[in-house]
């Protein structure tokens, strides 16, 4: 890859060329593929696709007579390409492409509870064997992935409920309140983020959209009642949604506790001259923050609110009794 900036017109031509050199071989091998399928597989809009195809059938080999040009036919929303033997196989993967796919696949393959795990593992082995050292280098031997967790046992039941738009009754341990409660939820999406499976659902107990960590769901019981999906966002969303009830919590983090600033969504962050980090984060319940401060030992200090200081002391006192 050259990092040189190029004029817009040329870079568009290069994007379109990149696409064509992959699309044409696919269509030569899979004649009569539907337009809709092509747009889905190749991430291209239908108008872009037809303008590319229109250009294609004036292309070919010298002397560019009728018998030298690539044949393109679009009939009944399906596409046929012939007279393009030299494009009958796609361009090989660039090193950057191979690395990006291989690394993503390797990381995903160790996700506990992934349905595609077996297929992904064999696909990655084929990539290692067939792409060979000139593309992947020694990389295959030098990459290791280990998630080291167990899948949540409730995943299958949750996925079934998501697929069938069925309301379920769950028992859930909420870290925010440190309590286990039963509730009915409409689950819309199951996804994996930073080491855990989550389900995005509408929670009838609070009347709000919530994220539930799958490993903290003790049981899933079908209700037989269908629900209308609300289009809740799952993957890629922030794991914490601020609410109006949030209290701003200010913590002073010593160096060993600085990861808190990376791991949680913080509103504000200031470095102090002594190398500490002062963060402000939103919390709708103080219980989980108190437990967080406790786990950090002396590495975090509560600056505000004052009642949080009291909660931490009380929690520490009750915990210490267990050691007496």
């Amino acid at each position, binding site marked *: 890859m050259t990092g040189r900036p190029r004029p817009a017109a040329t870079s568009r031509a290069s994007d379109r060329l990149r696409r064509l050199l992959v699309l044409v071989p696919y269509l030569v*091998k899979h004649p009569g593929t539907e337009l809709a399928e092509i747009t889905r597989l190749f*991430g291209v809009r239908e108008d872009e696709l037809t303008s590319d195809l229109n250009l294609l059938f004036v292309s070919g080999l010298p002397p560019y007579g009728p018998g030298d040009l690539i044949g393109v036919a679009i009939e009944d929303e399906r596409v046929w390409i012939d007279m393009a033997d030299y494009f009958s196989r796609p361009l090989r993967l660039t090193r950057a492409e191979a690395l990006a*796919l291989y690394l993503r696949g390797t990381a995903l393959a160790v996700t506990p509870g992934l349905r595609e795990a077996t297929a992904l593992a064999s696909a990655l082995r084929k990539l290692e064997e067939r792409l060979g050292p000139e593309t992947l280098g*020694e990389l295959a031997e030098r990459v290791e992935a280990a998630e080291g967790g167990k899948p949540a046992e409730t995943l299958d039941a949750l996925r079934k409920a998501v697929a069938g738009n069925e309301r379920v009754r769950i028992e859930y341990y909420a870290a925010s309140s440190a309590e286990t409660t039963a509730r009915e939820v409409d689950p819309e999406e199951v996804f994996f983020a930073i080491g855990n499976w989550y389900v995005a659902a509408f929670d009838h107990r609070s009347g709000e959209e919530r994220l539930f960590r799958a490993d903290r769901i003790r049981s899933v019981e079908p209700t037989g009642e269908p629900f209308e999906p609300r289009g809740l966002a799952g993957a890629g969303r922030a794991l914490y949604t601020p609410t109006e009830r949030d209290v701003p919590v200010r913590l002073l983090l010593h160096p060993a506790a600085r990861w808190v600033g990376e791991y949680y969504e913080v509103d504000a962050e200031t470095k102090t001259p002594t190398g500490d980090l002062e963060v402000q984060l939103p919390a709708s319940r103080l219980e989980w923050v108190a437990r967080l401060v406790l786990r950090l030992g002396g590495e975090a200090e509560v600056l505000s609110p004052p009642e949080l200081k009291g909660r931490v002391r009380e929690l520490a006192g009750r915990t210490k009794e267990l050691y007496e």
Partner: protein
Amino acid sequence: MHPLERLVNLVALLLESRRPLTFEQIRGKMPEGYGQDDLQSAKRMFERDKDVLRDVGVPIEVIATDPWEVEQGYAILKHRYYLPEIDFTPEEISALFVAAHAGGPDDAAEQAVRKLLYGTDGGLVSGAPSAPLAAEAGVVDARLTAAAEAIAERRSVRFAYRTSRGVESERHVDPWGLVFRAGHWYLVGLDRERQEIRAFRLSRAGGELLLDGEADPPPEGFRAAEHVVGGPFGPGEPEERATVAFSPDVAWWATRGVQGAVVEDTRQDGWVQVTLPAAPGDALASWILSFGPDAVAVAPESLRAEIVHRLEAALR
């Protein structure tokens, strides 16, 4: 003539030609593309097109066309251009599709899987998730790709790094391996200044990783994963075992995600006693403390002492 048409024709011409073609020959075969009266501007256009082709990944070779190497010709060698045969089952290609889309879009990974679609049986990705299966495969960004390239090319890398304690410095590293653990990618290699093997979490590398000179190869039997210590979010690498008791409220889920956790006993008061792998360092103490009064360390004594020490600090 549209630039795209000219580019497609150029690729087709060079792929089909049995011999390397000089620019003059290419100009003669593609008069509509490079037949301008002004030779210099035609030549410049050809040079730009060649750059575009290289950028797209088309391997254009420059080969001497006579034994005295006076004239140069251009060629695309079929065996370097065409993707080798790889047949994927629909399940395999679907899984790669999911991987390419996991954790946000990535042009390079998506383009890779599109090229591979060619080799599917029947061609159609049956069973591909209609909504992309949501999953996060760690953030694959420019830093990770650069680290992988450095390993593949045996080059050393330079980057700015901030440790978990917030200390920033410039590093020069011979990269020996990549490890994905608990949602993060780590680069493991020889820190040249410190002359020690270190693990660097790539999300803490500021800015770019710059490829530098040749790197020394790793020692025989090197295993990168052994150099990545557990993160602060849970129990880390197992070395010995600890015994922990959990209250009935949390016992059912506390150890669900912990590999190697074994339930030993349920006490009369409903508390559940569990043994689990204990990592060196204080990650386990932190994890137990995060349960507050719903968990108590039973053994070893050093773990209990560490927890009591931290509780006293919180009470001061």
